[in-house]
């Protein structure tokens, strides 16, 4: 598809940059029955972001936004680790954590669809309160667990493939099925594209909106399990910190408009991979740590600019001059910082 052209180009450029600095970048080996390599690492460490971004895509497609996913990531990991540290089975712990996430997501959806609060405010409530909730669960400490079964979620392997990648593929498949094989995707795009016309066409938007917020929280919950499982501990303060901004960015890079309507799951996955590759690149080409965030911001700005058709038009017309940032691009940059 043409609209995925630029994200693909950017990803390829980033990968090429890595190969230039690290010639062995593309090599993938099997060590001790596990796949190893930089590309595998990008997928493995990018898995939580991809999950959160998938949920965010559907929320944004309805014309909303979910700022609370980072806090939900923390809550999910915290509750699971607390349960395990209190000798609950891993299954119970995971079920309890995901159950709580569903409830929290449904709460967001209730505030947006039934009460009618603007999405950015409605989810801001849980973004702030959720951090507190996570700290309540962990009692302000970092809970460390020692459970090989729990460790599998974020750090394990299955048929040589990191388990996190398998989870992402599974969630992606389910999401694609629900939205593209069933009619959910069309109804979401319809509600996001024109809410009043959708109502007059008989679509019950309320249920759909509650569902997508619940789904976004569920995805964030799984990501939270992955993150805490990978380090065998739960940190209410820092787990998933700012991941909502990366996720929003991934969705936008993937070609889904913040104003709602058409969405692209493939684009979102690409967007999340670009962000993760960028993080990896920063380390591998040796950008000084104190300039990391600045470097990331610059690259993201460039990515957003190159995707904007009106900017490309301007840049071609005024070749040779310093490229001024268009208003659209500035808007996007604000999201990243």
């Amino acid at each position, binding site marked *: 598809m043409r609209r995925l052209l630029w994200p693909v180009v950017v990803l390829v450029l980033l990968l090429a940059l890595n190969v230039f600095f690290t010639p062995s970048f593309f090599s993938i080996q099997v060590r001790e029955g596990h796949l190893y390599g930089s590309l595998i690492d990008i997928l493995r460490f990018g898995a939580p972001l991809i999950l959160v971004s998938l949920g965010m895509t559907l929320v944004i497609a309805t014309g909303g936004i979910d700022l609370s996913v980072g806090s939900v990531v923390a809550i999910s990991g915290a509750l699971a680790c607390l349960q395990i540290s209190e000798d609950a089975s891993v299954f119970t712990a995971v079920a309890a954590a995901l159950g709580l996430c569903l409830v929290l997501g449904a709460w967001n959806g209730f505030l947006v669809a039934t009460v009618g609060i603007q999405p950015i405010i409605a989810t801001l409530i849980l973004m702030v309160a959720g951090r507190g909730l996570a700290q309540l669960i962990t009692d302000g400490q970092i809970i460390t667990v020692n459970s090989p079964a729990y460790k599998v979620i974020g750090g394990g392997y299955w048929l040589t493939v990191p388990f996190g990648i398998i989870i992402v593929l599974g969630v992606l498949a389910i999401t694609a099925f629900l939205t593209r094989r069933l009619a959910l995707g069309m109804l979401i795009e319809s509600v996001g594209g024109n809410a009043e016309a959708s109502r007059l*066409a*008989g679509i*019950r938007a309320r249920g759909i909106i509650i569902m997508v917020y619940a789904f976004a929280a569920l995805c964030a919950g799984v990501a939270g399990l992955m993150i805490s499982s990978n380090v065998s501990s739960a940190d209410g303060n820092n787990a998933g910190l700012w991941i909502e901004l990366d996720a929003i960015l991934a969705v936008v890079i993937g070609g889904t408009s913040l104003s709602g309507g058409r969405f692209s799951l493939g684009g979102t996955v690409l967007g999340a991979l670009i962000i993760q590759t960028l993080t990896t690149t920063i380390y591998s080409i040796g950008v000084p740590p104190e300039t990391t965030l600045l470097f990331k911001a610059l690259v993201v700005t460039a990515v957003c600019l190159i995707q904007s058709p009106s900017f490309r038009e301007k840049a071609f017309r005024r070749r040779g001059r310093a490229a001024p940032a268009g208003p659209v691009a500035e808007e996007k940059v604000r999201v990243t910082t």
Partner: protein
Amino acid sequence: MVTPAPVLTMSGIGKQFPGVKALDGVDLRLLPGEVHALMGENGAGKSTLIKVLTGVHPADAGTIELGGAPVAFGSPLEAQQAGISTVYQEVNLCTNLSVAENIFIGREPRKRGRIDWKRMRARAAELLSRLELSVDVSAPLSTYSLAVQQMVAIARAIDIEARVLILDEPTSSLDADEVEQLFRVMRRLKEEGIAILFVSHFLDQIYEISDRMTILRNGRLVGEYLTDRLPQVELVAKMIGQELAALERLHGEAKVFDRPLVEARELGRPGAIEPFTLTIHEGEVVGLAGLLGSGRTEIARLLFGADHAGTGEIAVGGTPASLRTPRAAMNHKIAFCSENRKADGLIPDLTVRENIILALQATRGWTRPVPREQQDELVGRYVKALKISPPNPEHLVRNLSGGNQQKVVLARWLILEPRLLILDEPTRGIDVGAKTEIQRLVAELSDGGMAVLFISAELEEVLRLSHKVEVLRDRRLVAELPNDDELTTDVLMETIASGGRTS
């Protein structure tokens, strides 16, 4: 009596928007101390003319003279400083601020750099007493009714040394007493020599308050008239654009309608439409005639559950029904093609196919997708039957022309096989060919037993298609006329103009 020199003269005003000629050679003159009504249907160019006058849009052609000197305003602020004040339909005040603050916002009286609150309140009270209004000027504006808010807006407008006051539909949200109060104020300002340009859809009000009127139609000037020399029938004819072509009625033989499908009894919604009683039979085409803003769309929206009814009840097929949501109406097989297809009909980002199956999919819920073969079959059939062009179902609907977009919305409802199809202005803004096709389709559908509620600003069209015509005026259903040989556009216009009182 010597006619005083006009305070404002606009001549030969032209304004082009992309794809539309909004104004073409329009003249307007305002005399001091008169209420001048600007008349025309929606889209006739009234708002554009006001916007050109107040500097919102630059004019492409023509000149504006204020007090004899040519002027060209770059912004509403410049116009205001020159003495042209505007009060818009939606009161654009800050309801959270006090009455006095609203009047003096941006130009508060100051004393040594700080706001002189005492003087501000005193002057506000003085201004309002000039409008025969005594309210607590330090109370928040939100504590007062819309009518008072309107007065406050007027007070602010006239305090700026106004020579011309533009009132754009100030009465649309006021009740009768409030309108009377507004008119008292207007007469008072008139005596002070202010020229008032008044826009309203209510003909009675126009005849009560205005001295002179300018009529626009399709962006062109129809003429300037003295209000008491122009009978209402002629006004309506001039606004609509009379065409006395011989009418070919699409319904030949008289049909007998004895099976009521939808019966509304005393159905109404405060502020939108007075309670009305209406029965639609199976296979019957009911036309709604009336000027824009007379309550036609409001009736349609109530029957479809798009708005909640405040009073009355409704029965479908003889049993009482509750139509609280569009979905509930759809379950009773009622369909509604709205007047504003861009805002209320289409999902521009979706394809023709998706837009067509949207309502069907909505009734099935997201878990039971319409199978792709069935989609293609249904969409293909209607794309062909309605001659939707380009005949590519995967085309984005936003790229279609207006007439084809209208057909897409129509197809969306036809695949549901409704028993009552409500069409609100289905032929507006579309070309003649598509118009005839849609008219023929309506006739065919009703022959097949479907009831149709047909709303159109074009009386000829209503007459051609309808079995009976409901006449609306000022948000009231004033008459029900069987469509027999005696019914002509003249009779209809007469009924609209007189409000059904004489006939």
